[in-house]
Each structure stands twice: as structure tokens, then as C-alpha cells.
């Protein structure tokens, strides 16, 4: 690289990079005014992205503990290997019939683990064939701008590129087609805050078993 092109590159970095990376904060409330946790917010910039490996800061792991999947919702990049350790004193039988990844991990016990590679994007609903009350979701994405809402119903996607993009908000119990709403937005260079109100239906009651 010559001196001139190096200088140009630095200038480009100075002007372009900071100006084009924005923080997008989304807060999600239900129609009854409550903060909605475990809503998955993804941003898909319209402009083509340089392909780069996507990596999230949280572990790609769904633990079975106290007859529940923990976390209830896990976001992973496409192609990830997710482990399913069992921390319960009883055995579990994890499965999904979702088209994004139908699989079955037959019975395994305490302190054992199995893993599954999620090679297609989409929503993968998890169940345990022994314990009908166990419900969980793996959300497989191909964008680095994805996160689930915390207890305050809030998500901040950092470093999103300014410009037009599609914002999607998904929640397992959202009253909407595919449990998802979609908005076309233009992310301003200075970042933005978006408030979203969603309608939720009550979580299904699988507590009884005969």
C-alpha cells in the first residue's frame, strides 16, 4: 500500500466508520403496559454486508434445570453448535419438530450434555417429551444485530450501520403472524430509540399431566 492510499484509508476510517455506526435502542411493552422480556429484536440492514463471522457474547447453551430450559430464548448465529447440558436429577429428552431444525436428543441424565448444530436460520421450538411443561426457543440468525430484551423490555443493538434496514421483533406469545412484527426503518447516524407496543397472548398452560 502506498503512502497516499494509506492516508486515504485512514481518512475514510475517520469519517466513515464513526459516522455510520449507530446504537439502536428498542423498548417493548405489552398493550397492558408491562415490559416484555425475551422478545428477540433483529436488524437486517438493506445494504449488503461484508460477510464476516458473527459472534455473540453469550454462551450458546440451553441448560435443563428445575424442569425448565434456561435460557427460555437463545439467539445464535447460523451454523452454531449449541450444547444442551442437563443439570436436573432426572433425565430429559429434548426435541424439536420446527422446520429450521428438526432433531431429537434421546434421554440423557444429570451432568451429561448433548449438542446440536443449527445450520438454517429460523425459530426452533424446543420441547421435552418427558416433561410437557418444558418449553424453550433457539433463534438462529444471520445478522450480527440481534439481541433479546431484558426484564425491562429493552434491547440495545450497538454499532448498527446507518441507513435503511428491516427491524423485526419476535416473541413466542406475540399475537401477530409468525409471532413477529416487522418495520422498515432508516437508522440515523446518531442512533435512535424505538418504542414498540405488542399484543401478547397468555402463555399456554402445560403444567398438567396425566
Amino acid at each position: 500500500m502506498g503512502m497516499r492510499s494509506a492516508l486515504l484509508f485512514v481518512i475514510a476510517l475517520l469519517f466513515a466508520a464513526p459516522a455510520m455506526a449507530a446504537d439502536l435502542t428498542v423498548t417493548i411493552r405489552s398493550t397492558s403496559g408491562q415490559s416484555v422480556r425475551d422478545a428477540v429484536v433483529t436488524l437486517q440492514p438493506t445494504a449488503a454486508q461484508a460477510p464476516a463471522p458473527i459472534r455473540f457474547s453469550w454462551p450458546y447453551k440451553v441448560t435443563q434445570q428445575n424442569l425448565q430450559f434456561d435460557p427460555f430464548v437463545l439467539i445464535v448465529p447460523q451454523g452454531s453448535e449449541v450444547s444442551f447440558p442437563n443439570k436436573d436429577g432426572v433425565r430429559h429428552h429434548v426435541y424439536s419438530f420446527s422446520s429450521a431444525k428438526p432433531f431429537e436428543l434421546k434421554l440423557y441424565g444429570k451432568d451429561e450434555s448433548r449438542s446440536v448444530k443449527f445450520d438454517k436460520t429460523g425459530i426452533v421450538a424446543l420441547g421435552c417429551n418427558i416433561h410437557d411443561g418444558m418449553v424453550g426457543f433457539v433463534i438462529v440468525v444471520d445478522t450480527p444485530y440481534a439481541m433479546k430484551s431484558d426484564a425491562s423490555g429493552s434491547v440495545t443493538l450497538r454499532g448498527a450501520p446507518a441507513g435503511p434496514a428491516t427491524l423485526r421483533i419476535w416473541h413466542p406469545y406475540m399475537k401477530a403472524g409468525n409471532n413477529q412484527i416487522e418495520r422498515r426503518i432508516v437508522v440515523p447516524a446518531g442512533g435512535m430509540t424505538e418504542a414498540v407496543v405488542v399484543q401478547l397472548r397468555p402463555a399456554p398452560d402445560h403444567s398438567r399431566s396425566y
Partner: protein
Amino acid sequence: MAAPKHLGMAIGVLLVAFAPAKRAWSQVDLVSRETFTGLLDLRLSATTGERSFVDGDFGKLRFDGGGSTVKIRPSLADAAIAWRPRLSWAWSATVHAEMQDGVKPDLIQAYFTYKPTPKSATRFQARMGLLYPEISLEHEGALWKTSYTITPSAINSWVGEEVKPLAVEATVRRPIGDHEFSATAAVFDYNDTSGTLLTFRGWALHDLKAPTRHEWALPPLDNFIKGPQSRESYPVRHIDDRIGYYGRLEWAPPIGATFNLFYYNNLGDKTSKDWDKQWSWATEFWNGGVNWALNDKVRILGQVMSGRTLMGFKGPKTIWIDMDFASAYVLATRKIGETDQLTGRLEFFRTRDNSPQSGGYAFANRIAADRKEDGWAMTAAYKRTLTPNAALFFEALHVSSERKARVLTLTPQGQAQTMFQTSLRLSF
């Protein structure tokens, strides 16, 4: 006594038939710690009023009342164990036995469950063996224990004592849009005496479960029926050669509520009997149920049951026994904090005798043979979960009823009982 022998054989045959293929051995778990669930129910009760039906009287409750005074009774109300071996990835079994205070130790349930891993949103499950059909909204788990109160409603008390068939049952479950539907169909036998206790004693409120080889005591019988009918009723019996059936539909719209409708008919021939003077009753009933979670804390349950039971030959005017029965309850329960739960329940029950003349011509016996009953009950319960393996219940229950047949014990037709109970449930 044919039931347990056949049952044992059936279980043996099925165990062999469904012995898992070699490669699936890792899915088999016959006797690990995980396959056993047990429970101890330590009880302290204080009861007024009549002597319990358990002792062959007309008392509506599990424990004897002290008449106008309170009778206090500490007891090991229940020691229960369930063994749930896993036979393959889709097959498991449940064998459930109990030692209940007031009933001889016995097998309670014994059945296989077939539950393949769902391949789509349509789920399938089958059960076969001696089992409780899914009628009660108040019971849960392998040990079929009450969830909210110590004492279940009159409806589910009766299910516990006389609706336990040897059944083959299949259930299909599937969501359609935001709505979830399930349908169950079953054929059954060994429930031919169902209706006997309900006819001669009337409705009751207790948490006892039908023994399999043993019997319920019946209250004194009128002069006519005590000839052909034993004072003991065996709830699990095969008397006529007719197969009964039941069916259930459930609908869960996306509003936090589940509605179900259940129909049972044992198709008894009414006139067969065995050497123990047990009869093949013809019993049918409808049960409708609602389970509504208003929010995270409050839940409303309700059931309505209406049915009819017939037995015997044609008497001077009508068949020996032709009785309608009906009951309904509403239960409201509220979680308090992380560990506590407060529950209230109100219920009504009645029976109507369509054959009061069947007792013969003597006037006195006509009253004694009239199975008419009207009653109501009110229950309040408080549950505290102490640890995942221990729970403490407090319960107050008042039941009031009018029954003509009480003339047989020379007691007034109208009777009321009040009971306070505390129960410590320890599970492992």
C-alpha cells in the same frame, strides 16, 4: 378377584411384547432412583357430625365426626409410591400403590404410556391399564394427588372412588392457529360396579382412592336391596362381558382458559352379578370442565357433572335402581408470594331417585329405599410450599346434606359436618 390376576398377566405380556430392541438400551431405565416417586401425608383432623362412610355409615367425610363434639385424629393419611420405569424412548409404565388410612393397602394405578416424540405439531399419546381417566382438574401427577386443597370436590371424590377402569386410551393433540385442541377416546372394562357407592351412600368429599383388590363399605341397605346386594362394593370388577367407553374433547383458546367435555358409559347390562353379590351397573355421565388462568396469580376452576346409574331387574313398578346424579363446583385459587396459595371452593350436589317404589310395598322401606339427596359444601384451603419436597396444607370444610335413607341409621335426614385439617406432605 379376577381383576388383579388378569392385570398382572396383562402387564407381564406387555412388558415382554414391548421389551426394547437392543440398540435402544440406553433409553431403558427400570429401577434407577429417578423411576421412584413417593409421598407421605401426615394429617391432623378435627371433625364433627356423622361417622364416616369409610366405616359403613352415611358420613360425608373421610374421618369420623364426634357427633356434636369434635373428634380429633392424627394419622398417616397416606403413604404412596409410584414406580415409573422407562421401557424405551416412547414407552413407559406407571405402577402406583398406596397405604391409605381407612382403606387396605392396595395397588391404585398400573398402566403403560406410549408417547412418541412429536414429528409435527400433532402429538399422540396412548395409555393402557388401570388408570384414572382425565376428568379431575384438581388432581395431578403420577400419584394423583390434589393440587389446591386437601379434599377434592364431591365430583372428583367420586371419580377417585368409583371411576377407575382398565382402559385402552388414545389422545391426539394439535394446535390450530392460536387454539389448541385435544381428543381422547377409550374403551374399558373392570368398572362394572361404578355407581354403587354413589347410589347407596350419596355424594361425599374425601381424598381416598379406589382400592383395586379391596372394597368400600356401604351404609346400611334397605330391606329389599340388602338381599341381592352385598354391603361391600368392589370398585374394580368385571361382571358382565360388556366393554364400556369414554371420550374427551379439550379446547384451549388463546385466552388462558381450557374447556373440556367428557362422556363415560360403562354399558352395563344391569342384571349380571357375581358370587360376591356385585352387580353390573349401567352408569353413564357427562362432565364439563373449565380451567381459567385470569393472570399469573389467580386461577378459576369449575366442573359440572350429570349422570344416571341403573341396576337390577324390573320390580313392582320400576327397575330396582334408577338414579340421576349431578354436582357442580367452582374453585378460585390465588398465589400469595412465591410459596403460598389460598383456595376457596363452593359446590352443590344432588341425586334423584327415579325408582323410589322399587323398595317394595312397605311404606317404611320406601323411605329407606329413596336415594334422593340434596347437599352443598364450602371449602377453604391454604397451602405453603416449604421446600421442593415438603408442603403444608390447612383446610376448613363444611358440608350439609339431606338424605331420606338416613332413616336406616335412625338419624335425622338433614346432617351437617365441619372439618378442620392440616396436612404435611413429604415427597421424595
